[in-house]
């Protein structure tokens, strides 16, 4: 798969690498990137050869520094915009990915950048990574799932603190609050993501998918429903 304006897609064995590729704009998320990602994620979901996905940012400075605000002022009327939101529901695609997603986070991880990272299952960060959610200072709220995925990842209190005070977290604080799983030196970030992805890709893919589903879906259920789901999934491997 090639020829995307804002994404680079590469496959290496069982691992797919999705690079947010607008380094001149710090990989800012825009309508074109939404459309490119929507297509890529759909193709990955349908590709049984892909066992793990690594999501990373092009260039050295950023994973993704947020949404491209210049497009915001020409947004269609709210009722239309809402319709489009659910017609091309990219966050639903992220949520329902059968394959595990690993985010490799360097530099600026702001706004939609954090939100994309939060839809991944595992987050590896470089020591130079900085995390922020500036939406409320613009009079809006995170709309790429952040109001849901952030509290589910770091708790409502820490999430509220970030949004209220507009403080950016450095990598060490991100690790402390559980926003990321591991810290690496910048030059070690991609090798570590690759090594982890290849390790997961070496496991029985049915077991990997079933385990991810059990954890993800189970979070939305009562414990007894989750235990029943786990039994069914375990038997299905």
């Amino acid at each position: 798969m090639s020829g995307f304006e804002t994404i680079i897609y590469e496959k290496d064995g069982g691992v797919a690498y999705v690079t947010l590729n607008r380094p001149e704009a710090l990989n800012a998320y825009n309508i074109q990137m939404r459309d490119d990602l929507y297509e890529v994620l759909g193709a990955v979901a349908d590709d049984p050869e892909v066992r793990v996905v690594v999501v990373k940012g092009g260039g050295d400075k950023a994973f993704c520094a947020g949404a491209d605000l210049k497009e915001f002022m020409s947004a269609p009327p709210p009722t239309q915009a809402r319709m489009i939101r659910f017609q091309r529901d990219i966050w639903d695609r992220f949520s329902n990915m059968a394959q595990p997603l690993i985010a490799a986070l360097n530099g600026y991880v702001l706004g939609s950048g954090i939100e994309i990272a939060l839809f991944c299952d595992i987050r590896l960060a470089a020591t130079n990574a900085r995390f922020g959610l500036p939406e409320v200072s613009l009079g809006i709220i995170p709309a790429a799932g952040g109001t849901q995925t952030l509290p589910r990842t770091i708790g409502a209190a820490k999430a509220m603190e970030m949004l209220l005070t507009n403080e950016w977290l450095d990598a060490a604080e991100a690790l402390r609050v559980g926003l990321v799983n591991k810290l690496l030196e910048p030059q070690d970030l991609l090798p570590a993501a690759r090594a982890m992805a290849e390790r997961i890709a070496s496991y029985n893919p049915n077991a990997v998918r079933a385990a991810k589903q059990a954890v993800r879906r189970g979070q939305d259920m009562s414990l007894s429903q989750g235990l029943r789901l786990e039994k069914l999934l375990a038997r299905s491997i």
Partner: protein
Amino acid sequence: MGFTAISYERREGQGVITLKAHSGQAEQLANLYYELGQLADEVAWDQQLRVILLTASEPGGFCFGPGTAGWQENDGEGRWALAEQIARFDKPVIAVLEGDVFAQGLEMALACDVRIAAQNSRLAMPQIAAGLMPFDGGSQRLPRLVGLGKAMEMILGAEVLDAAQAMAIGLVNKVVAPGDCLRTAMGWGQKAQANGPLAMRFVKEAMNKGLDMSLAQGLRLEADLYFLLHTTQDRTEGITSFLAKKSPEFKGE
């Protein structure tokens, strides 16, 4: 506004609620309950208000209820759902915690959105020591905040945590020197002045209500609140100001 159990004032654009000293008597708690409810309804109409601070007039103001010194059961008359009134505030609430934060005082703090505690404060849920259990949300909010393991330790074992331990488990967001809590909280409130007031309310709603839903349902709630903000002037003001590298002037419209 004629309150007796609390005082409320706007300070530097922030809403500051101060719990007045009480001895835990049923009548005083009844007043506190009704006054908090009345205030919650009134400040909902304050479109410019971004953030509320909840503090006490003296250290230990959040230390009352079963398991605390001097508490007496009043045949159930004293059971006022104070934390539930706190939960009604639609703006983010910062709890300012000096001294001991025990029992129903901790339950009130848990109904706030973030918590700042003094270094010498202690936090506990000791109702079990009086042969009772939390009745104002503690058994629900505490495990959702700090996890079941730590919540069980506190609720079943009446464990008392110091501020550092509370910080380590996420029970409080920040620990500061005694006497500095209010100033620190107002500093956070100052930062919040840069934010859109409607956005602040909607983000609190999206997070708190969303956590009670499946992720898919929560994502729809988020989308609905987001597109509602599309209809506001504040959104236009926020984005055009950012692009023009100016400070926005939000009106809450």
